[in-house]
């Protein structure tokens, strides 16, 4: 039943749309300027272009810019008085820098356009962790990246290997629950031909070892070991046994990856896991969503056939003092926000609304050339996919791992904090630094310097708000 309040809201929304031309028929000429990441991310928008034109008379002018220049483009737009973009795409790590001063709080538009159900349709983790800042909604997630464990069933579930593993380690060979088990299994499958390629097999590979992204592998392990980005005194919460343990374990695991892995980036690790027999792989959603497709970027590496050998599970964790924690990397999703300088905020919001509408959203999700992954609650239903055929087991696991998704750190200065960390993690993993404690201590020193320069009190205040959102999202991170 429509209440009077609902009727008033609908009236206000209709008035707003009419005022900006959104309600006009085809032929009207409102152009919405959208800053977008390029390549495989474009389908998020291009699938909606004709629809927005026909239905609302909105033309999309997509201005492409890759990371990190897209973030810089937002800053430049802000510093030059705005007007270049109406809608902007960025990594949520920049929420803390863009929300104050550049992004338009969306709550008023959500109310006027009666879009609350659409925002409620976003998976809670993404909505709470990535779309809010300072108690306001500032963005809409459009690409939900979270990593999971892809394991080779022909390795882990092989009865002969289970027997052999038991004889060697005294343990059962099964999907690992802890990093200790993971390491034992990775070691077991390294150095002998156990798979169909007939080549020497390996135990482990991750999505990238790039210096610029390496923290996505280490940070969830650190959190699982009982660390956090910051402690209560606003000191780095990982410059301790938790961070050292995670880094040491990661280096050990690197020894069970194919030779030369430390210099591999995204595309190369992908080719690596299909060309070699690798028992366990930590990768993002694209692999499971697109892997079976004969037209995706995984197809040339033999994805459709080889993906059938994979099973799905959450990342392992650490069991410390009877307390078990495990987290999965939630780095590199993308969100859309609206510039507060936009002269057509209602039209810009219509773009966000359209992208969040399940019937429209599925077009980019169910596209073998799209890198947009699940982020709406309805995205995990196998029935919504018409072209792609991600297995139900995969979709269920993808939804499950989000309960323990470990998010990007979003304070102002996030880019610099991460660079400081990446440099030292990479130094240890490549052997440029031999002591993990020294590597982390050096990174911590730089974090302290960054914090002092940006204002310790101000940063601590932001962290308090971010931590509160972690709690609201159900993340049970250690509070040091």
């Amino acid at each position, binding site marked *: 039943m429509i209440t009077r309040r609902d009727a008033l809201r609908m009236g206000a929304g209709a008035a707003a749309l009419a005022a900006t031309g959104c309600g006009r028929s085809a032929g009207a000429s409102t152009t919405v300027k959208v800053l977008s990441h390029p390549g495989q991310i474009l389908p998020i928008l291009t699938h909606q272009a004709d629809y927005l034109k026909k239905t609302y008379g909105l033309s999309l002018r997509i201005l492409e810019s890759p990371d990190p220049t897209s973030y810089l483009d937002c800053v430049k737009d802000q510093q030059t008085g705005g007007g270049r973009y109406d809608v902007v795409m960025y990594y949520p790590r920049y929420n803390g820098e863009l929300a104050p*001063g550049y992004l338009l709080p969306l709550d008023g538009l959500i109310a006027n356009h009666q879009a609350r159900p659409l925002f409620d349709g976003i998976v809670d983790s993404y909505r709470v962790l990535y779309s809010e800042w300072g108690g306001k909604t500032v963005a809409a997630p459009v690409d939900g990246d979270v990593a999971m464990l892809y394991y080779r069933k022909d390795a882990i579930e092989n009865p002969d290997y289970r027997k052999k593993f038991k004889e060697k380690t005294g343990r059962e060979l099964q999907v690992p629950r802890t990093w200790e088990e993971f390491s034992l299994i990775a070691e077991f499958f390294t150095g002998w031909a156990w798979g169909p390629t007939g080549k020497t097999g390996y135990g482990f590979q991750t999505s990238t070892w790039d210096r610029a992204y390496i923290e996505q592998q280490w940070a969830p392990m650190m959190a699982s070991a009982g660390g956090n980005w910051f402690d209560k005194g606003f000191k780095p919460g990982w410059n301790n046994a938790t961070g050292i343990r995670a880094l040491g374990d990661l280096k050990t695991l690197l020894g069970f990856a194919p030779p030369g892995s430390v210099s591999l980036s995204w595309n190369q690790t992908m080719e690596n896991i299909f060309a070699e027999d690798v028992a366990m792989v930590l990768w993002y959603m694209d692999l499971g969503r697109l892997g079976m497709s004969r037209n995706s970027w995984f197809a040339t590496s033999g994805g459709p056939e080889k993906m059938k050998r994979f099973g799905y599970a959450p990342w392992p964790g650490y069991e410390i003092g009877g307390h078990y924690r495990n987290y999965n990397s939630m780095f590199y999703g993308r969100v859309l926000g609206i510039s507060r300088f936009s002269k057509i905020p209602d039209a810009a919001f219509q773009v966000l609304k359209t992208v969040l509408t399940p019937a429209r959203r599925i077009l980019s999700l169910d596209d073998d050339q799209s890198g947009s992954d699940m982020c709406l609650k309805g995205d995990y239903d196998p029935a919504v996919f018409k072209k792609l055929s991600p297995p139900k087991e995969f979709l269920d696991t993808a939804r499950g791992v989000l309960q323990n998704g470990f998010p990007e750190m979003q304070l102002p200065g996030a880019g610099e904090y991460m660079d400081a960390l990446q440099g030292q993690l990479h*130094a240890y993993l490549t052997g440029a630094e031999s002591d993990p404690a020294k590597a982390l201590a050096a990174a911590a020193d730089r974090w302290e310097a*960054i914090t002092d320069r940006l204002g310790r009190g101000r940063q601590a205040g932001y962290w308090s708000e971010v931590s509160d959102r972690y709690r609201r999202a159900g993340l049970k991170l250690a509070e040091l």
Partner: protein
Amino acid sequence: MRARTFGRLMIAPAAALFVTVGTGPLLYALYASVHSFPAEADAPPEFRGFGNYIDLARDPQCLQSLSTTALVMVVAVTLQLALGLGLALALHRIRRGRGLLVSLLLIPSAVAPIVAGIVWWMLFNPRTGPVNALLELAGIAPVEWTVAMPWALVAIVVALVWQWTPFVAVILLGGLTTIPPSILEAARLDGARSWQLLRHVTLPHLRPFFLVAGLLMIIEVVRLYEVPYYITQGGPGNQTVLTGIYLFKLAFTFRNLGGASALALVFVVVLSAVASVYVRLVSGKPAEGRIA
């Protein structure tokens, strides 16, 4: 109109342009170097005196980038000048088709730095690159070129030498063509051998050309960004973060405009000192053509 006034009027547009695009940014850099710029998009700059300079002096990453840049500069520029001289001498002997050869040799220096970076990253790729494939053919174990020291620095220097040595050679070739044949002939008549000709006639004449080529190469190396960044991303760890990369990161990744401006100004001073030492070393009065 008096000639002096007319002259001033004529140079006024150029002077205005220089003040606008040269002095303006310099003044802004001075202003920025004594302010901090909070990370939030809407926060105004805050005055912090010499704080940015003090931070740089305490920043191990900054000091490391300066020393790494100095090392790359010394090695790369030395190799570029030495190999460039050899190439120029070889080209000088060629009479037919030299113009075509020179045009072909200049191609690397016309390649966009980002393209050069991508090409060398592919060549040095430890798993798929042809450099390691050649090493394997020769029975040498593959090298982790992009993530291990000192190989990451070697890869960067090789890329720089490849890209700019022909350009140096062309500058020096221009110098070789200005040496009057009569001087060389006279030296030969006095019994000078090839090495003595090079040492006492050719090299002294090439001093101003070495000066130009060397200064251009020093400037090229210190403003390096694309080639080393694409090959190593600054790794392993931070060991190949040259000053150009660090400056870019400070300004555009960290949005620390104050620190970046301070570093840029410090670097101008350091670079001026390096350049003046180089000029003093190279541009001394040409030695007399004394022949033993």
